[in-house]
């Protein structure tokens, strides 16, 4: 009897190791979601993460977006698809979502759909009229223009050597230029709402 009792206890203990169920999987706190709605929005409207323009998505039909980004402080570039663009800043909690713009009607975490109100209208987009060339000599037609952090990257100039970069949200951006035979150069450019800023970049051999 005693032996059987010992066996029973041993078997039960072993079963304890095997008979577990469920799991405790911690959420990934390295990413979160930025959600919002752009109104009005048009075809071609999109949002992307400033600094990582490949992290983006087109706006939904109602102008909403739901973009998964690294958690922490982020800036979103929003384009309405027509003539407006803006920078949306947000503190993104890990494994959670944040609404940018006015508080959603059903505010609160845990609801990833965020059926909320649209944010304020985006400001008018701006453009950069960029040219690049040496101090003496013609402008380069082989140059490639990139506005750092945005999806404006590697834009080639026209035959006249000009490149119209945008639409861009108002703000200060770094314009970088790379041209064969010249050192890469960059300048800070302030984009203004509804305007086009001319940026001439000197290239040095």
């Amino acid at each position: 009897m005693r032996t059987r009792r010992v066996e029973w206890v041993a078997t039960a203990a072993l079963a304890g190791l095997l008979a577990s169920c469920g799991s405790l999987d911690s959420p990934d706190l390295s990413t979160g979601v930025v959600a919002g709605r752009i109104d009005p929005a048009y075809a071609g409207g999109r949002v992307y993460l400033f600094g990582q323009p490949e992290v983006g998505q087109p706006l939904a039909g109602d102008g909403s977006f739901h973009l998964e980004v690294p958690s922490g402080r982020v800036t979103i570039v929003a384009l309405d698809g027509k003539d407006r663009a803006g920078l949306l800043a947000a503190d993104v909690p890990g494994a959670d979502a944040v609404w940018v713009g006015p508080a959603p009607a059903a505010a609160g975490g845990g609801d990833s759909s965020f059926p909320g109100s649209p944010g304020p209208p985006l400001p008018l987009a701006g453009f950069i009229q960029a040219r690049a060339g040496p101090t003496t000599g013609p402008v380069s037609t082989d140059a490639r223009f990139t506005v750092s952090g945005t999806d404006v990257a590697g834009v080639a100039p026209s035959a006249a050597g000009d490149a119209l970069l945008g639409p861009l949200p108002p703000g200060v951006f770094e314009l970088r230029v790379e041209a064969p035979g010249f050192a890469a150069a960059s300048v800070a450019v302030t984009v203004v709402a509804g305007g086009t800023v001319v940026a001439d970049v000197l290239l040095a051999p």
Partner: protein
Amino acid sequence: MKVRATLACALAALTSACATPGAGEKGQLVPIDLPAPSAGSPAPRRVALVVGVQRFDDARWRPLRFAEADARDMAEVLRDPAHGAFDEVRVLTGGPTRLEVLAAMRDLGALSRDSRDTVVVYVSSHGTLARDGTGRLGRYLVMRDTRLDDVPRTGLSLGDLESAFDALRSRRKVLVLAACHSGDGKSLLPEDVAAELSSLKAGFFPPPIDEVSRARVVLAASDFGETAREDEKLGHDVYTHFLLEALRMGLDRNGDGAVTAAEAHDHARRATYAFTGGRQRPSAESSEVGADAVVLAGRIERTGRPELYSYAQRLDGFTVRVDGTDVGDLPGGVALASGPHRVQLTKGGGPEILDARVTLGPGERVDLAHLMDRSDRWEIAPRLAALGFLDAKSRLDVAGGPAIGPALAVVLREWPAPGLVLRVDVAAAAGRATLHQGEQEAPFDYSVLTGGAAVAWRWAPAALGGTAFLVGPRLSAVWLERRFDLALAPPSQTYLTFAPGLLAGVTVPLGRRLTLGAELQADWAVVRVDGQDRSTGFGALLLGAGWRL
């Protein structure tokens, strides 16, 4: 060598009953085990060895006055056909040596070869204490050739005597040791031992005369640390006088026609206590005493009245109250009329530690200690529990803690075996913790539900007045839940596992039924976290009250 003057030290009488109840009867109502003649086998015999030593070669042992008289009269009563009617009684007086006594014990074994035989061994002499070769303080009986300066090698060790006694085949045997070991009365201690004991602040209480076997009972003329006495007027040591009186007078408590060892001892104990003004309290030790049918005088002619008894040390001094009337004190026994009774145990003005209703039939003998165990077997114990993982990492990312919550334990004592308890418990707690990943944090709520069953050993030292300790293995189920209020995490995660562990606890009685208890539980669990099995400990501290049913 200083010889301590002394009063006569009375001796211990022991009687041991051997009627061994069947396994199924242990702890239950105990029927008297009447010797049943078996066809084709000789009738059981009644034999005795009676030893009295009152003069000693070493003059430092003070001569006793009545040890030989004790032995002679004991032998006479046992031989007397009107009383003991023993078949053979051997008497060793005139100063037997240690070896002679041990040889007589071996001869006794040759005389008694049937387990149904009744055997009585009675020794009256000085007692003493000495350290043996291992440094252990042991008790010895002083024989004629015992030297005070070499007690371990020349004295009769109680251990040796008991070993020889245990070797007797009889299951109905009584060992009576008429000596005390207090250093006073009928004992003398070597100087070094006496000096050592006198330096103790507290009184010296040597351990009981070993654990008694199921086949014997130890009835002592005095309790440990007390002095046994001889008395000039009685012409015997006090206890032996009243033990003889019980046999001669045929003090048959339950009316079955016989005087059993328990009946004789109960009379001698009460009379000795009264005669000495409470200075000498004969004691008895045995798990089976009272259940014995060791007949010392007369013969069982009819079924006796039912009896209640207890010789359990933890019940010493309690009064037995039956149907509202005090009928006796413990240790000892009382006979009742057959039928239903309300039985209570009280001491002074304190609460009843037992209040039970029993129905007794003719011949039934109920051990009150067992009745207590049986009547208070169930206990419901609400608790306040502090639950938590024992490792810091799990406390951070699985369940914070310790978390406080309610708990409930149900205890069944004396199951599945005497001395064991079954304990089933459940506890729940909830709290809030924070998950950390690098610089990111996420608060979460958690719940813990644990339930377990333990079979634990229960130990209740008599000196602690009912306080009991528990320790034993426990198997539990642990259910965990985490709830994150995050858009990208499942709202709830659960995990269930079984965890073997240990339980340790203490229960302190606060009254008849109310107890105060605390338990510590420690379990080993494997928890799957983030896809990996984690070996961890889960603990719980429980505090609360209990109610015995």
